């Protein structure tokens, strides 16, 4: 096995995901989605919401480490 297996896998995965993402946004322009709430129907809203939510979750989680993270043997002390 080559050492850069994971790297090349990561690269091609990124490439395909970006292509799929672009296609999904383009598809959104071809027809009007019907949703329960009107602002979800805005072009690319779910994509934007997904991206922002994900970043928010990770960043807030990272910040919460300050308050919630203890040593591994915390309860044994």
């Amino acid at each position, binding site marked *: *096995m080559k*050492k850069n*297996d*994971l790297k090349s*896998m*990561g690269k091609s*995965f*990124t490439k395909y*995901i*970006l292509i*799929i*993402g672009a296609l*999904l*946004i383009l*598809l*959104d322009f071809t*027809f009007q*989605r*019907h*949703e*329960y*709430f009107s602002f*979800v129907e805005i072009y*690319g*809203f*779910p*994509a*934007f*919401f*997904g*991206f*922002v*939510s*994900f*970043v928010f*979750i*990770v*960043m*807030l*989680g*990272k910040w*919460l*480490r300050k*308050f*919630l*993270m*203890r*040593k*591994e*043997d*915390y*309860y044994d002390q």
Partner: protein
Amino acid sequence: MISNFIPGLIMIITSFLLPTIPQYFRHPAMLLSVGLSALSLFNGYGTFLEWDILGLNLILYQSDSLTLPFAIIFHIAAILVIIFSWHSKNLMEHMATLAYAGSAIGALHAGDFFSLFIWWEATALTSVFIVFAGNTNAAKDAAMRYLIIQVSSGVLLLIGACLMLYQTGNHNLVVLDLKTNFGIFIFIAFGIKAAFPLLNGWLQDSYPESSVTGTVALSAFTTKLAIYALARTFPGTDSLIWIGAIMTAFPVFFAVIENDLRRVLSFSLNNQLGFMVVGIGIGTELSLNGTVAHAFVHIIYKALLFMSMGAVLYRAGTTKASELGGLYKYMPFTTIFCIIGAMSISAFPMFSGFVAKSLIMSSLGGMGMVLIYFILFFASAGVLEHSGIKIPYFAFFAHERKNKVKEAPINMLIAMGIAAFLCIAIGVFPKYLYQILPYTVEYQPYTLDHVISQLQLLVFAIIAFLFLVKFKLYPSEIRSTVLNSDWFYRKMLPGIGKPLFKKIGILTDSLYKNLGLSFKQVLSKSYKFSNLSYIKVTTPSFAGTILISILFIMLVIVLV
């Protein structure tokens, strides 16, 4: 005769007989017992067994359209667990698992709160041995905490049932509300097992401490039994909508920073229960169908994810993200099965999570509950983060691995393969799932609008992940403990209680010392006093003993 036999009971009986069965025949016997129990699925709806005792009419076996889907999936889960643990020779764990699954199935068919209480406690008492089978000091401690919490839930249920019987004269499983005191007791009892916010600590505390196979069994039954009980007794209870929404959102942040991947899955389990609880809170036919469908598919994909992490633990010896990575080369089948589980829980179209979660989201949309809708939409991105990406990424990819490990044993692969197959089959052919739901609702999950918006959400969340990794913003895994609501009884209460009891101890010590002298004097006097012939204590004769016994029995009879 078989039609009157409580489903699950045959599994409990078999579990007691397991020690007498040779090792090689134990798993076939377990499967056979599940098969025999599953015959009850064909009995149809109705009340099949009642028992009049102490003036109470206990409904031991009843079945209806809400019971059936849970009963089907509990039997499937039991089969998956048995196959997954085929390699194991741990007799205690096998007995506990079979009896636990049997108790959970029995509980589904209880028609009154007292029968439910018996099964409720039976699931607690049997499952604690599964946690215990983790066989580490941490597992043993967690098992004791687990037992206390689970039994407390049962006690609250019993108090609620007694109050209900006393106040209304009824103890059957009927729809309750939170305006009555017994309703509140029962609600909290169910809430503990359903891992409501702040009552959830036991779940993340105990499940990851269990054995390779034990966690799979644990993940399937207890919490979903609570969901069933809530759906039966509290549908349409408004507060459940908010409780559920909080359950979907909060565990997400804990899962991001947790290092133990089985604990990440336990947080994820909590988050999934939130979706189901919201469905119960809405209380419409569509939303209750959504809850049941979600519980059904969730048991399969959650078991699949726990099985994949169980396989990793079995082969690599740990599920800590900080120690793992690169296993895709050595465990390719486990990797694929894990990814299928991850895609199902993330609700990718054509996977089972999609067709179930859609029902709940649609019912929310239909009711115009915009805020809750967005919390759940947000939580969906969270599910993708911790279960869709974090689990497979850190276990199987992340970085190259130096030490070789073997692929999972064949029985594990078979169990994972069946679960993976079901995840895809239900996703592709949802109508078979919809057919067994409690209410007849025409629903089409695969509309172009819905598929596109869901794919946009998920794909761009993945792009966000790639972005964070690329710019080194994604938090690296650190060996650590993440505080959870179990902190209150593991640290805070002992922190207050221990010094307090120490002070009380010092006080009572000095009190005894001061009183010691006077006690001695009293004792010496009483000794002299007791030696006086006319008050000397004598043991009763044989006839006297008989007489006292008869009087005692009469007293008991009169009291009863």
